[in-house]
């Protein structure tokens, strides 16, 4: 009798606990953990991106070249024909005595190796440094995108690294296609800011081939609004966005939104030196390889701040400032996979699943009562408890409920009563053999046990395979199925057993096996 009490208590307590914990999920209150809905149910953007890590390596070699050039100029080392290649750069050293100085300059940097070919010096990145740069680029891209999305203002964006050079972005709560596109623009904007010297002596560059351009050390860039307007700029930028400390929305002299940026002290001094030396020349403000403006330098500019003007809408200016402030992406990204669901579709999916869920439940409930009588009601109580506990546990462990997960919940109704069917069939079998009610229940449960456990474990094996090799929504399905099966061991076996035990004396007294177990009396006559 004591054992029976224990079973009922365990069942009642866990069910109450489950009911309490699943209330927030149903009424949408915030006071406790709620079930997190998948992007396919609440609407949102899921995308998997690949970082073009080669670009990061290229950028690295470029900035090394830039730093070196600055050093050479400062120390009056004469160099010529600075050429930048994918993982190296080369230059010709004009004054031979400066060689030790150059070796000294690169000595500190472990990731660089020098080689000589006559007067030409080749500076290249070591393979380890290349690998490290790539890895760092992915990590930095994750950080940068995360920062940008945090500033974008949608709740709970998630940005994670996946594999060696992929990034998964999940953005729930996107309200419209337009907003989604804005978010995507923000994610993918390289936001590579460069201040470049316009080379007005090289108008001939406009008709040059790609190779000649490289050999000459200039680039041709287009205006951002008018692609036909071209600028010839020096290949090596004066400054880049890595020296930026802040960017915010301001207004230009015409009252148009513009982006104001501030440089760090190193950037500010380079900027001041450059403007002092190049009064009268034009400086192009280049963002993601497009020229936004190219003002003439009228005087030395100290203080290290500047402005990017253009015909921005306030939103564009705001997103651009966010992008610049969170830093440039170390390399551009391409899309490998995207799944985007509008909020209305998610809501429809929830509604349809709920209709299926309720009608499925009603059918199974009716069937169980019709076939098994009160034993069927016990199974139904266990089933309700099972569903409630699945939701409570998912809320507790912060698991995500997806559309296939909801389908799994519907499926659970059909599958978890299986344990009760097996048990009830066993009990009936014993009753038919004339065994006493008490013994029939005891033995019915123990006889059914091995079947139920084995059958459940094989289903869990399939669910685990699904979880390990599945992606997003399918994982959600596997989670619901696994929790459902595990919980059903408690509710369908321990719970119903407890209920039988608690009412045992009543069952024994009533002798109405049709009422309690749904056995037609005609069947029992033959036995007795």
């Amino acid at each position, binding site marked *: 009798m004591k054992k029976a009490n224990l079973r009922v208590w365990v069942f009642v307590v866990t069910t109450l606990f489950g009911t309490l914990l699943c209330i927030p999920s149903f009424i949408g209150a915030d006071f406790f953990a709620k079930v997190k809905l998948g992007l396919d149910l609440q609407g949102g953007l899921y995308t998997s991106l690949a970082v073009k890590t080669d670009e990061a390596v290229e950028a690295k070699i470029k900035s090394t070249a830039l730093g070196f050039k600055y050093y050479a100029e400062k120390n009056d080392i004469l160099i010529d024909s600075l050429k930048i290649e994918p993982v190296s750069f080369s230059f010709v050293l004009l004054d031979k005595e400066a060689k030790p100085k150059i070796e000294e300059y690169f000595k500190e940097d472990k990731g660089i190796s020098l080689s000589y070919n006559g007067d030409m010096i080749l500076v290249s990145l070591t393979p380890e440094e290349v690998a490290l740069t790539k890895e760092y680029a992915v990590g930095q891209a994750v950080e940068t995108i995360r920062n940008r999305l945090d500033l974008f203002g949608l709740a709970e964006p998630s940005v994670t690294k996946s594999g060696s050079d992929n990034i998964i972005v999940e953005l729930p709560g996107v309200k419209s296609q337009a907003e989604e596109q804005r978010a995507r623009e923000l*994610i993918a*904007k390289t936001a590579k800011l460069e201040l470049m010297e316009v080379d007005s002596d090289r108008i001939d560059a406009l008709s040059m081939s790609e190779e000649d351009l490289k050999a000459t050390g200039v680039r041709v860039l287009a205006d951002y609004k008018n692609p036909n307007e071209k600028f010839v700029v020096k290949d090596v930028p004066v400054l880049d966005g890595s020296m930026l400390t802040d960017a915010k929305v301001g207004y230009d002299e015409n009252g148009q939104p513009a982006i104001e940026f501030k440089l760090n002290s190193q950037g500010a001094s380079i900027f001041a030196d450059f403007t002092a030396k190049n009064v009268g020349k034009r400086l192009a403000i280049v963002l993601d390889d497009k020229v936004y403006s190219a003002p003439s330098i009228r005087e030395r500019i100290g203080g290290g701040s500047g402005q990017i003007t253009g015909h921005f809408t306030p939103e564009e200016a705001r997103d651009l400032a966010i992008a610049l402030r969170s830093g440039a992406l170390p390399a551009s990204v391409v899309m490998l996979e995207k799944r985007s669901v509008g909020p209305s579709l998610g809501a429809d999916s929830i509604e349809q699943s709920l209709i*299926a869920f309720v009608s*499925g439940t009603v059918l199974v409930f009716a069937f169980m009562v019709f076939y098994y009588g009160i034993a069927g009601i016990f199974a139904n109580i266990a089933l309700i408890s099972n569903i409630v506990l699945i939701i409570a546990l998912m809320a507790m462990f912060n698991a995500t409920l997806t559309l296939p997960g909801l389908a799994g919940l519907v499926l659970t109704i059909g599958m978890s009563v299986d344990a009760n069917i097996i048990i009830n069939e066993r009990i009936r079998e014993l009753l038919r053999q004339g065994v006493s009610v008490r013994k029939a229940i005891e033995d019915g449960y123990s006889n059914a046990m091995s079947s139920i456990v084995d059958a459940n474990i094989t*289903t869990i094996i399939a669910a685990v395979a699904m979880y390990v090799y599945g992606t997003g929504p399918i994982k959600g399905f*596997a989670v619901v199925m696994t929790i459902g099966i595990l919980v059903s061991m408690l509710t369908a076996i321990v719970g119903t057993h407890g209920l039988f035990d608690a009412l045992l004396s009543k069952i024994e007294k009533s002798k109405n096996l049709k009422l309690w177990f749904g056995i*037609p009396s005609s069947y029992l006559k033959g036995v007795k």
Partner: protein
Amino acid sequence: MELFNNNKVYEFMRLNKLIFSISVVLVAISAFLFFTKGFKLGIDFSGGTVVQLRYDKTPDIAKIRALLDGSVLGRADIQTFGDKNEILIRFQASSAGVTKDAGDIVASILAPSGKFEVRRVEIIGPKVGNELKEKGLMALAVAVAGILIYVAFRFEWRFAVAAVIGVAHDIVLTIGGLILFGIEFDLTVLAALLMLMGYSINDTIVIFDRIRESIKEAKPIDGKYDLSYLINEAISRTLSRTTLTVLTVFFVILTLYLFGGEIIHGFAFTMLIGSIAGAYSSIFISSPFLIWFGYDVAKAKEKEAEKLKIKIEKEKMRAEFEKGTV
């Protein structure tokens, strides 16, 4: 209520040759469909683009087709999706651009076709498609291997192989059904197939468990055991359970199929066929294989007796040891 006379032993194994040939024919048809018609692979596995739009009134499909004809995305496959105001557009091509993707392109091309809302955009690059395909096959293989090992461990190898043959039979027939009805094979269908494995093996295990029990209790007739009879008896005893569970599962899947919405259709359809195939194969495929594999009841009982003897001996020794007589 009772569905079957529980005191009767139905002679399932007598039917096994007939039923088995039916299964062979069905499997052959499925294989034929697989190699001729083949899967309609969803974009999850083939890569491509799906755009789901809902118009404010019934859209003019011909006009949409004309607008999309010759777009950069290539040939479009357009169909209504659930509701008559809703359409699903499919492209073989995917796009790698993040800021302007295939969904944006479709939306701008179709702007003249009426007012609509973009409800879903899925773009799967070829690399991801292949990866998902590989992972899917891995999941199936791992699940089969896991089940095989578990059943072999709990029963014995003949039971395990027979059970897996039953599961394979169900998967093949279900796949045949999917191809026949032109259901798109996507991730949810794969999930359904995996679930089906677990479910189909469920039925088999309940019957096998009962067969094992029958064998334990079996008494020899003229010094011999009748395995067919024992199997028939086990199946008959579990027949109500098998039928009832199929019914409850079938009920819920049917509601899912009818009310669950278009996106879950493939999933529900797969389970619908599979749940019936699962029960059928447990009775008519997996069980007779035990006979065909030459499962020997007498030997099994000998082994069982041996085990029992060892156990008793061990206990005796332990008891003596505890008493301190050794």
